[in-house]
């Protein structure tokens, strides 16, 4: 019964399942490092999913699809940025509004795209690496976006750690008043960080509709955006841990799907609940260590900045 689950297939599908969440989470982490809490990740992901899908289907190119998804996510994020950075609206409420609007908008745009197959995304040919027994199939035979997402995580890590721009972004998230006093353009930096986060979320959504499923269905993100937010907290705002968290969550999701398929004697619904319950558990464990959260969370997270000099 449980023995009918193929571990190689499990790990391989784990990487694919984790990629959308990884993309969304790493983008949100950058936005949060700059001090903004964007709860609209779910909305940005799903809009990215449908826009990417439409772009790919209509042009026949999956690349156009990914680009379209990223642009759509960035546009949604720009809307959020306008409201919170310029109009000083409450970040929690605006994030929720973005999600609700995104869900509605995506359903609207997606009318008529149900049941269509998108153009396939190319596998990355890693030559001899993918011929390695066991590991080859597990790790080296995926489409190129999987590896691009890993590269993105590394790039974000290096950016925040080693570059001046990354230092400035972190500074803005730690104390926007001090950054402003030193002459840095807080609003501009936050808008850029938000748009990057939106583009990543949109990309993650596009990956869902173009590769993971691959199809368009209303509400297909099923809470992935919220999970991404939880992963950022779990990761204590560190890029490496975001990778760990995303893969952990992807692993749980894939495992429960496999258990369902293997006919395990637990009703399907309870298995489906597992990823969400595990997320709650993980959040509790991380939050309970208050001093760790206080040390790692950007001090300005969620606070609006108004230049009053």
């Amino acid at each position, binding site marked *: 019964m449980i023995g009918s689950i193929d571990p190689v297939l499990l790990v391989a599908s784990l990487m694919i399942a984790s990629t959308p969440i990884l993309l969304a989470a790493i983008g949100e982490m950058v936005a949060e490092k700059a001090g903004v809490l964007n709860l609209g990740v779910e909305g940005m992901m799903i809009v990215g999913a449908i826009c990417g899908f439409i772009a790919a289907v209509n042009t026949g190119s999956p690349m156009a699809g990914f680009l379209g998804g990223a642009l759509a996510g960035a546009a949604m994020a720009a809307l959020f940025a*306008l409201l919170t950075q310029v109009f000083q609206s409450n970040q929690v409420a605006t994030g929720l509004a973005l999600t609700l609007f995104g869900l509605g908008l995506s*359903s609207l745009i997606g009318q008529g795209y149900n049941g269509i197959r998108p153009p396939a995304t190319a596998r990355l040919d890693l030559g001899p690496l993918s011929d390695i027994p066991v590991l080859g199939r597990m790790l080296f035979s995926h489409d190129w976006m999987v590896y691009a997402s890993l590269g993105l995580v590394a790039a974000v890590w290096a950016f925040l750690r080693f570059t001046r721009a990354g230092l400035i972004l972190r500074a803005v998230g730690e104390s926007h008043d001090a950054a402003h006093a030193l002459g840095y353009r807080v609003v501009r930096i936050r808008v850029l960080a938000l748009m990057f986060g939106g583009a990543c979320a949109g990309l993650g959504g596009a990956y869902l509709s173009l590769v993971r499923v691959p199809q368009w269905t209303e509400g297909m993100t099923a809470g992935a955006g919220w999970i991404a937010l939880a992963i950022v907290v779990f990761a204590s705002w560190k890029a490496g841990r975001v990778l760990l968290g995303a893969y952990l969550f992807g692993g749980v999701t894939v495992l429960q799907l496999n258990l369902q398929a293997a006919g395990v004697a637990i009703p399907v619904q309870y298995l489906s609940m597992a990823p969400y319950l595990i997320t709650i558990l993980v959040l509790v464990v991380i939050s309970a260590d208050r001093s760790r959260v206080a040390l790692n969370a950007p001090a300005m997270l969620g606070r609006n900045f108004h230049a009053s000099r």
Partner: protein
Amino acid sequence: MIRLERRPTPSRFWTGATPVLAVIATMIAGGLLFAALGKNPAEAIRTIFWDPLFGQFASYSRPQLLVKAAPLILIAVGLSFGFRAGIWNIGAEGQYIIGAICGAAVALAFYPMDAVIVFPLMVLAGAAGGLAWAMIPAVLKIRFNTSEILVSLMLVYVAGHILSAMAFGALRNPEGMGFPGSRNLQQYPAAHNAELIANSGLHWGTVTAFLAVIAAYVLMQRHILGFQIRVAGEAPRAARFAGVNPARLTAICLGTSGALAGLAGLFEVAGPSGQITPDFASGYGFTAIIVAFLGRLNPLGILAAGLLMALTYIGGELAQLTLALPAAAIQAFQGMLLFFLLAFDMLSNFRIRIGRPEGAQ
């Protein structure tokens, strides 16, 4: 260049005018959206906002307004306490579902007994179920400082799966010929949440919603708890200085909103909806968030906003029938409303100034 300058005291005028402005702006933007979909914008707006009240089938749609508004208002009133205090219950949809399940379970346990006690017990069960579901994020926040936003939201998905499990399993109608879904409570008189006045849309849920508005108004204006909620939301450090116990406040706000959401679920499953089915949850818990903000987190405002939102639901259904407008358009429309409200909200706290940026003294 255009600058924003903080007002010394928030403007009363703009605080009241913002929702009206937002509605007008949404109508305009919505009109553009409908035009893009190939529908006549004026006709669409009329169908959504005017016809349900005064049109051909108004005598049918007017009572439906109250039916749709009741759960929205009930849930939104509960949410407004928490939102004012900075406690974000995003999982009202989950509490609504669990309340409905608990209430229906009690009813089905008594079936087919015809006793006066059944309905009150159902009501208690509904409130208790919602309360318990909301206490999970409350306890986790109090003990472990976990984000109530994320926990309550995760629990919505969990509740959705529990609903499915119940509809297919534990609560399934044995005489239902294998279809998922419980018995229809509308056919069980002791449990039915019937209309109190025929064709008025007024059922016990509506009455409770009105009572909740009144109680909330008195609480926020006159009672010390209402004062504490407001301070906690505006100046958390000052609230602690004033002796507000944050744990107690969290428990009260989340518990109350959970209980009210659970009640809304119960009244819905025992009344207009009738049975526990996999798609029982229609998103009231999320729309109520929009209602709460549209009503400026004020009970009387929520009353008006709930009625308005119900209008968009009914009008939307009407437009689906007569104009073939997709259902999702209304959802997008509602989201836009919240956006515009949040954007215009700025006017009550800031003045727009045109000129060169000047340093402060």
